[in-house]
Structure formats: C-alpha cells, structure tokens
C-alpha cells in the first residue's frame, strides 16, 4: 500500500552537475531563486529560462523527470494564477458573470506562473542531482558559520540524515501495523470523520511505541560506536572544491549580477 513511496528523488547519472560540490548546488539554487524574484522584464525572464534550460541539459536528467516535480505544485500554481488573473484591479479585458479579467492581472499572473515553474524546476535540479547524504553534508559544512552563534548545525544535519534513513522503515512499519489491525477487523474506510480518527489509535499507538524503541536502540548503537557529537569528528568523505566548483560560483554570481543590472535598464 504505502510501500511504493520513493524518497529522495536522486537520478543516478554521471554529469557535470552531478559531480559539483553540493554546497555549490545549494548556493546556486538559492542565488537563482533570488535572481528570479529580482527581475521583472520579459527579456530577463527569457534569459533566465534559457540558462535554466542549459542547466537541465547539463544535468543529463530526462526532461520528463524534471516536469514530474511540477505535478505536485500544479494545484497551487492554478490557484495563485487564477487569483491574480481575476482579482487584480485595472483595465478590463472581459467579464464572466462577476469575474473580470484585467490586463494587469494577466501580466502579473503570467509572471507569477513563470516564477513558480522555474523555481520548482531549479530546486528539482538540486534534488535530482544530489544524494540526500551529500545534501546534508553540504548543509552542515556550508552553514558551518552559524556554529559561531551556537546554532547546532551538526546535530541538525545528523537528525536529517537519520530521518532520511528511517522514513522508509517507518513507512513499511505503518503498513504492517495497518494490516495487522485489519486482520483483527479494524475498519479504516467507513464511518464519520470522528470514527475514522478514532480508528487511527490502534495504528498510532504501536507506531509511536516502535519509533521510541528504535530511537533508543539507535542511540545505544551510536554510543557503542563512540559517537559524542560533532566535536573532534573527522569525515570519511570530506567536501573539497575543485576548479569546476569555483567556475560555477563565478557563473552563478554573474547571473545574479545580470539580474540586478536588468532592473536599472529598461527592457521590454
């Protein structure tokens, strides 16, 4: 039932983007996002779209895979587009009962749609080309500066990677417990909302008990292997910047610079 869920949508091919340091990709996604919200002209959007298309080609991930990520935000996209389309005051284009579409609305809505689509695509490039582990590693090292402010960067990264490891196990466990309770005649599919909520108790209690037991076991296993927090820990796979990484940073900042520059000249 629940087993088909796949987590972390890493697409394993060997491409230039795949080989980049995860910190570059994290920073890149962030910078691209800023650029996306700075620009406000069609020409600039077209340039950014071209750049994004270039990244997708470089990543060697099939386009159909990229677009899959869009499905999940389709509803949000339609909602915000239609709100902007009909609720922006301005020059009326046509009217359907009480709804009127305005020229300004059309402009804002289409920009909004473009931004959202590009945003989802750019973050898909990140998750499709980076393993969850590399991602947490990148976050740990990239955000290392926050340690100075006593922000527990290592602990949070460790928690994320443990969560990634245990989510599939707990999903499978939920499936098992559900089946076991169904075998005892539990009914999750009929009755009022109240009944259905009550029917979840026989699943949730064992699931919590099991999650706590696993957490206890895992803590024990980590301690047995001398875990004592991030202090004094070394890395099996330390992150190193290569020439390609520095080059990529350069390109990314150039894009951001161009985006900022585009605000000061008038473009169609």
């Amino acid at each position, binding site marked *: 039932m629940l087993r088909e869920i796949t987590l972390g949508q890493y697409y394993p091919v060997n491409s230039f983007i795949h080989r980049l340091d995860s910190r570059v990709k994290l920073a890149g996604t962030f910078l691209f996002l800023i650029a996306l919200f700075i620009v406000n002209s069609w020409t600039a959007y077209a340039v950014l779209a071209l750049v994004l298309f270039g990244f997708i080609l470089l990543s060697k991930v099939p386009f159909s895979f990229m677009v899959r990520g869009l499905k999940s935000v389709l509803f949000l996209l339609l909602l915000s587009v239609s709100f902007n389309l009909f609720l922006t005051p301005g020059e009326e284009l046509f009217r359907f009962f009480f709804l009127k579409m305005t020229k300004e609305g059309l402009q804002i809505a289409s920009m909004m749609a473009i931004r959202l689509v590009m945003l989802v695509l750019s973050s898909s490039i990140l998750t499709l080309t980076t393993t969850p582990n590399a991602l947490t590693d990148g976050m740990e090292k990239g955000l290392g500066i926050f340690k100075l402010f006593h922000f527990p960067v290592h602990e949070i990264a460790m928690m994320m990677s443990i969560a990634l490891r245990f989510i599939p196990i707990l999903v499978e466990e939920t499936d098992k417990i559900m089946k*076991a309770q169904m075998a005892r*005649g539990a009914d999750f599919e009929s009755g009022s909302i109240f009944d259905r909520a009550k029917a979840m108790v026989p699943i949730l209690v064992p699931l919590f008990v099991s999650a706590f037991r696993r957490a206890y076991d895992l803590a024990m296993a980590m301690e047995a292997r001398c875990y004592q927090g991030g202090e*004094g820990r070394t890395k099996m796979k330390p992150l190193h910047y290569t020439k390609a990484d520095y080059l990529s940073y350069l390109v990314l900042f150039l894009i951001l610079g161009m985006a900022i520059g585009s605000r000061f000249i008038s473009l169609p």
Partner: protein
Amino acid sequence: MENIVVKDVSYQYTRRNENDEVIETLSALSALNFSIEAGSFVCILGHNGSGKSTLAKLFNALQLPTEGTILVSGMDSREEKNIFPIRREVGMVFQNPDNQIIASVVEEDVGFGPENIGLPTDEIWQRVNNALSAVHMEAYRLKSPNHLSGGQKQRVAIAGTLAMEPKTIVLDEPTAMLDPSGRKEVLESVLELKRKKGISIILITHYMEEAVDADRILLMDSGKLVMDGSPREVFQNVERLKEYRMDVPLITELAHKLQKKGFPIEKTILKKEELEEELFKLKEEGFSLQENFTAPELPGLSELSSEKPEAGDYIVEVNHLSAIFQEGTAMESFALKDLSMKIRRGSLTAVIGHTGSGKSTLVQHLNGLIKAKSGEIFVSFRENPPLVKSGKSFLFFKGKKTVIEKKGRLSLSEEGFDYRALRFKVGLVFQYPEYQLFEETVLADVMFGPLNQGKTREDAEALAKDALASLGIGEELYAKSPFELSGGQKRKVAIAGVLAMGPELLILDEPTAGLDPAGRDELFEEIAGLRKNYAMTILLVSHSMDDVARYADEVLVLHQGELKLEGTVEEVFSKKEELESMGLGLPQIRALLFDLKKNGLDMQLGNTVSEAVHALSAYFSGDYSEGKGVSHA
C-alpha cells in the same frame, strides 16, 4: 591473557514515579565473577529476561555496574576517562539489524565509528575497506541498507564495529530476527573473525546449535551465573538445562535419549558427525540392545485432532493464483506464480520457503488483505460469512440489500463477498504480533477483535477471557498494561487477540521467532491444544524444519512464488534432492538418519527425536547381523 574481568558485579534497575521517588528496584544481575580470555569464543545462554543483555551492555560501558568492577584490558569502566577507550576495544552488535545502521549507504555506515574517533580520512577509507572485505560485503558498499537482506545488514553492522579495530566483539542475539540462511552467514563471519584476526567473540543467543562451536558457555538464570564450562560439559546436563528454560542441541538430545535406552554412548555428543561415528562403531562391535524390543505405538498425528479430517474436505482451495510485485515498473516480478493448493480441514499445515518465496503474499490472500487479481480462492467454513448483495439503485433510492447465507464452497471473488467478515474466520497472526498491541490493559486489547465483530461488551469479554486462558495467560495479568509483560507473554496476548474472534483457520507467521527454547515449546504445545479443543485448522509459516517435522502433518514448499512440493511431512522430507536444490535442508534428525542409512544402517527414516529413538532401537535390537534390515513396509 584475560581480556575482560568481571568482579562482584551487580546491576539494579530502579523505577521512579513522577516525583522522582523510588518505587522499586529490580535486580538484573547479582554477584557475577568471571573473566574472559583474549581470543576466545564465549557463548552466553539464558532465557528471556535472565540478564544477558544487561550484561552485554556492561562490557563496553554502555551501562555501569551498580556494584563491583569491570576491567577491560585493565581499564575500569566506572572511570569517566576510560569510557571511550573501552568502547573502542569492545565492539557491539545488536539484535535488530535496522536499528543499528546509521547511514543510508553501506560504506558510510561502516565509516561512522572511525569518523567519531577522529581518524584521518585516508585511514578511515583503509579501515572501511578492510572491514567490508572481512565480512565479504565489498560488492554492496554503495547500496542502501534498506535493499539488503537481514543477514547482510547484520554483516554490515559487524563491519561497522570491526572498523574500530576492537579486541572483542559482543553480539547480543544477532541472529534472532534472521532466517536460517542469514543466521548461517552471520555465524560464519563471526567464526572467521575469531580464526583469522584473533578477535574475542562474546555471543548471546537462544539457538543451542550456535553454542556448539564455542570454547566456553556461560549460562545465566535470573541474573546469576549458574553454569560455566565447555559445550560438552554444559550440554551433558540435559534435565538441568531444561529447568533453566534452555535446551540442548537436537542431536545431543537424541544421543542422551539413546544412552538412557541402554546404548553405550559414552561422551556427550554435540554434532551429527560425532553421533554417526559412535553408531557406526556400535554396529561394527556387533552391539545389540539387551531389552527385548517391542515397538511402542507412536501416536498417530491424526489422533491429535479431535475432528477426524475427512479425505476431500478442504477449508481452503487456491486455484491458479498469481500475484505480481510492483506491477508496471521496471522492478516487476512474480510474487506468486500460478499457484494451486488445498488445505485440509483440521490439519496443521506448514508453509516453508525462503524469505521472499511468496509465503506472506500467499497468506495475506487467504484472509483478503490482498485481493486475488488472477486465479480464484475458495473457502468453506462450518459457518460461511454471508454474502451481501445490494440491488440496483435508482436515482436517490438505494437498492434493497439482500443477505444470502451460502453453505459449502464459496468463492472469494463472488459478488457481495464481505472481506471483513472473512478476516474473522481466517485469523492471521503476523510475525512479531506483539508490535500491534495498543490498549491500556491486556483484556481490552484482546477484546478489540470481538468488538470489531459487533459483539456486545459482555460477549467480547467472555471471548477474550476464553482466548487468554487457552494460551495460559492467567487472570492476574488481565488488568496489566500489555507493555509491562515479558516477551513471551506479549506474544501470547497478541495471538489471543486473533483467537478471540473465533477463527476456523488460524494462520501463524513464525510464531516462535525470538522466544527462548522453553517459550517456544510452550507456545507450540498450546497451538496443538487449540487444534484439539477448538477443532481449528492451523497454517504455520516457518523457517525451522525441525519444528515443522515435529508439529505439522502436511507441508507446502514455496520457492520463488511457485508451489514446488506438497504432501505429508513424510512425503515432502523424503525428497532430499529437491529440497536441497532450493537451498532448504532436511530436519537435523532426518539428515542424520539419512546418512546412517546411506552408509549401511538399513532402517526406517524419521523426523523427530522420538521417531529416531524408535527407529534406532528397532535397528539395534533386530536381527541385523544376518544382513536383513528391519523392514517397516
């Protein structure tokens, strides 16, 4: 040289209430004194709750003794500065393979320990490579642990401790959750480490067969050390071991019973080869059993059931059932392939096969948790669940529902079949059923099923009490929380939860996994009792050929989703080659008798200890000297 020294060690658990006041103290270990030699293989045995796991955690300072001292290479575990050096010397592998793997990639998990102790990157890699090759897992280094088998996961866990280069590895029931092939994998890896690297091994286990190769056995009972000696010394006390809820290897038990019968076997037998040798020697010496042997009547299996099964009376019939895993993806594969079988009413039928052979898919079809997509399943209960057919509906008017009672054979794909009602007739007890307990009291938990059936509270309570009593759970436990019970008790409460619904067919998936030998025997006795007292048909999914041989009367063998063998225990276990080609073995006793027969002791084969005693007694008191075997045709 002594590696670990345990001096006057006691350990107490204290339970406190919300105000931090001590409610009670439970003594888990008391006054232990022993030491462990470097490079030795020590096995710790003891029933569930005897204090073995607590002891294991004391060895590497995961817990500290309440009294006494533990010295690891001379370091006292109670001193703060020694904790991490001790943990580097004494590695630990736990029972549940899933709960001790930290990283999502095998090699990164093995590197976790070395990272923690701050080794340089190059050395981490070297240690990871060495550790993975020591357990033969190099090929899986980039895999996700979620895609490995149980045995492979445990080998990764062993590699994880090995990368710390420990002098001792403590394994706390590492094989309890594994199938026989996984158990073998893990045990072989451990023995190889001892042999090649001289690492001391401390193995905690419930499987007596695993203790046979140890240099020394420590037997724990209620927190005390009650026996200490070589396997041969410990296993000669067959009766005393049973008092401690332990057992001896089956072969040892057979030899012991033969000795009692008058066979002049002198030493304690631990292995099949040793017993074979002894028996061949007896044959050459011309030994003849003195007492005049009269064959006692073995109880026929059919007498165990109150209802005499009639030929052709089947409770379940499966015709051409196929099921596909992950249909429509690249991983598509057959879980079941054109499978047809029948289960005789009143029988105890065993389903055997490897992990992944389709056993659990099959049993979930039988109670409708999975609906058959191709093929058909028929059931025939003494009281069939009614078919509910709703008439045609017109606009807002729903059609009238008609309830049809149908006698005899009923197809699961018939229109109006109520799968929920089926689940009350076909009780399915999953593996580790205690994980599904959720209510505040034992009684309430068992009542869950009957209440779902729509029974009144009074009726549900009566049914629950009856089910609990039939599994030997006393009234004093009814009001307790199920989470306070011992492992074996929890298991029985969970089984009672299914039993209380009054199923006609009870399916048990590995019901004795993780229980100690006495707990296992008790549960099987109670299952046999259910059959007798409630005329229940039982389907037992099992990995253990010895249990199947002892308790089942019919066997189904599944392999890669296909039904390969089907028949009585005798019929199925006589097909040695076919079983071996599927990687399944014979019951230990049968394997012994088979070897004997092949080498000239012409006698009847059997599967259980009592059958073997019977057959060997018959052979050695018969007139074999003239070359005539005792024939039991």
